[in-house]
């Protein structure tokens, strides 16, 4: 066991999987000698060589497309896209090829790869370095999408993703890259894709979130009056959605608040709220509420904290839902 940050936990997972499986290679802009702009791949090139931890030219479609080719040919590539805002140029390769190849060829050609991407706001970064595009990819058949909120889950989910036979988008909430540490086992382990986690149990209301917002939800829960017993669910996997954990909780509580950074309209909150009303209709005591980013472009950093959900807003929403 070691007390690790999220960055370190990811680095550890990468190290161990590269050690264990020679097919695993990392590629991307500045991931090699520089160890990645967030130092997530620090030390990997020194350890595994420049042929397995590869600095690529500055071209996201190139990174994604050649990673697809590598995967086709039996490798287990882990491309990094430097920031979620730069997934744009890689969108076509990801959505029209990576996600489709297994079904397109009826299983003859498959694309086992993990696309690592730092996501989300809150770090005072320049434009296009603070978005949360998870819903786009949850709407894209053929992709799995995960987003850890703790170092432990990060390691376990990443190992699970690397061993998954299909493309997995691994979103790393950059706001909590180094925000806190957690005990992370040295041994390899997996956290299953598709399973949410009940972070704290409660009976009055369910709060559902993922990524960096989990920390804010915990803060909000702390601030609630003693008589409100809230259950917090960390989705962990964005797609496939763990409906059972969600439905079980809301059947019990009858109330739900969903929290995410992405714009509200057509965000994950909409899907989850709809699942809830489909599955828990007769149990619902109040409308499911969403605390989300606005339906506006993510502002530059002077205003980013006004845009992002915070503990106060979450608590406020909980209050409203409880008062309904």
């Amino acid at each position, binding site marked *: 066991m070691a007390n690790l940050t999220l960055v370190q936990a990811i680095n550890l997972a990468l190290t161990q999987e590269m050690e264990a499986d020679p097919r695993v290679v990392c590629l991307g802009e500045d991931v090699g000698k520089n160890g990645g702009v967030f130092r997530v791949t620090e030390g990997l090139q020194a350890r595994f060589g420049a042929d397995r931890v590869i600095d690529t030219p500055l*071209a996201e*479609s190139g990174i994604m*497309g050649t990673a697809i*080719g590598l995967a*086709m*040919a039996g490798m287990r590539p882990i491309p990094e896209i430097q920031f979620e805002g730069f997934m744009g140029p890689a969108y076509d*390769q990801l959505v029209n090829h990576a996600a489709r190849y297994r079904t397109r060829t*009826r299983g003859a050609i498959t694309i086992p790869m993990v696309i690592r991407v730092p996501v989300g706001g809150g770090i005072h970064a320049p434009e296009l370095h603070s978005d949360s595009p998870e819903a786009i990819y949850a709407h894209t058949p053929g992709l799995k999408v995960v987003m850890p909120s703790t170092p432990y889950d990060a390691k376990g989910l990443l190992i699970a993703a690397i061993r998954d036979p299909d493309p997995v988008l691994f979103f790393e909430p950059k706001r909590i890259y180094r925000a806190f540490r957690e005990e992370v086992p040295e041994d390899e382990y997996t956290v299953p894709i598709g399973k949410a986690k009940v972070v704290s149990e409660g009976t009055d209301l369910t709060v559902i979130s993922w990524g960096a917002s989990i920390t804010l939800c915990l803060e909000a829960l702390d601030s609630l009056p003693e008589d409100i017993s809230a259950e917090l669910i960390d989705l962990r996997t964005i797609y496939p959605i763990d409906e059972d954990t969600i439905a079980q909780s809301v059947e019990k509580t009858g109330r739900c608040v969903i929290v995410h950074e992405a714009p509200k309209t057509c965000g994950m909150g909409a899907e989850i709220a709809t699942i809830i009303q489909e599955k828990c209709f007769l149990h619902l005591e109040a409308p499911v509420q969403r605390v989300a980013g606005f339906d506006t472009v993510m502002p530059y950093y002077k205003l980013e904290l006004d845009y992002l959900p915070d503990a106060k807003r979450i608590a406020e929403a909980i209050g409203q839902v409880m008062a309904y």
Partner: protein
Amino acid sequence: MPIRTVYKAQIEYLQILDEDGKLDEKLAKDTLTDEQVLFAYEFMLLCRAYDEIAFKLQRSGRMGTYPQNKGQEAAAIGSGMAAVKGRDFLVPCYRENAALFLHGLPMEKILLHWMGDERGNQIPEGVNMTPLSIPIGTQMLHATGIAWAYKMRKEDRCVITYFGDGATSEGDFHEAMNFATVFNVPCVFFCQNNQWAISVPRESQMASETVAQKGLAYGAHCIQVDGNDLFAVYKASKEAIDRARGGGGVTLIEAITYRLADHTTADDARRYRDEEEVASWRGKDPLIRLRKYLERKGMWNDAKQAAHDEKNKLQVAEIVKNAEGIERPSVDDIFDYTFGTELPAELQRQKATMRTTSLGQDPEQAGLHADRSRA
């Protein structure tokens, strides 16, 4: 030296068999044996027969949109023959059927593809290729990646990827050439410059004089060949493949050819190109040219032609029968190849309920609710 030349380049054009079927013996040396040429011609005839039948299938409503290969057979076969079946890997677009067949793709697969059936893309084990690629320009990156894997694993293999003149306008072409040359992977880029991208002629597609010179941007080897000349295509491809496998670098081959048919069966080329132009290229048809050559060498005659035409007709009819005879795919297939892992619960429900409703709702649960709401 305040003004100095820091870079110089030139592009060569290669032709070995001219339009009249005359061979440049010197250049032809060490290219194809007589047997190989004969084989190539016979294979081209078969592919042409296939192409015409595919066209008719579409016209009679038995198949969807189909892009004819007509006129580009020498480019496909010449390059295909330069690659080693079972060792090298092909990453095609959709207008080089002959190369794919040569490398072992069962011929009904292409029909199945255009019949709207993913099983047409289910490449058999041991056949080294990706399926036809629909989004233009995207497949060269896969080729680069596959070649890169060969290099990483020190396998003595090579990838050849096909694309059209139009495809070279896409950003992915640029990124693929750049990655391929930066990492010096064993990949050959084979452009079938058939002069048109649907209705857009090459001159409106690019301001450069050649497609080949686009490779200069990446420090690649570049060559322009007569794409309707089997010998030239073979020679250039063979050199490029040998070089690539030896770690000697990436080559961009521009094969000058012509799309004798419409873009696809959904297209009507008379809307945008002159019959005169088409007519001028009909004479350059690679089949005509090769036949002239073989006849001159006494290796071909009308009787042989008739026999082959007959044989090909039967063979293609058989292929069509196979393609049409296949049972309708199971609707389960819509779901079953989404993931290699167990189907997520929601997808299981969608699959279970798909014939009755798209709700994806557990019918039992729906019933349950109905009861409770009535209670």
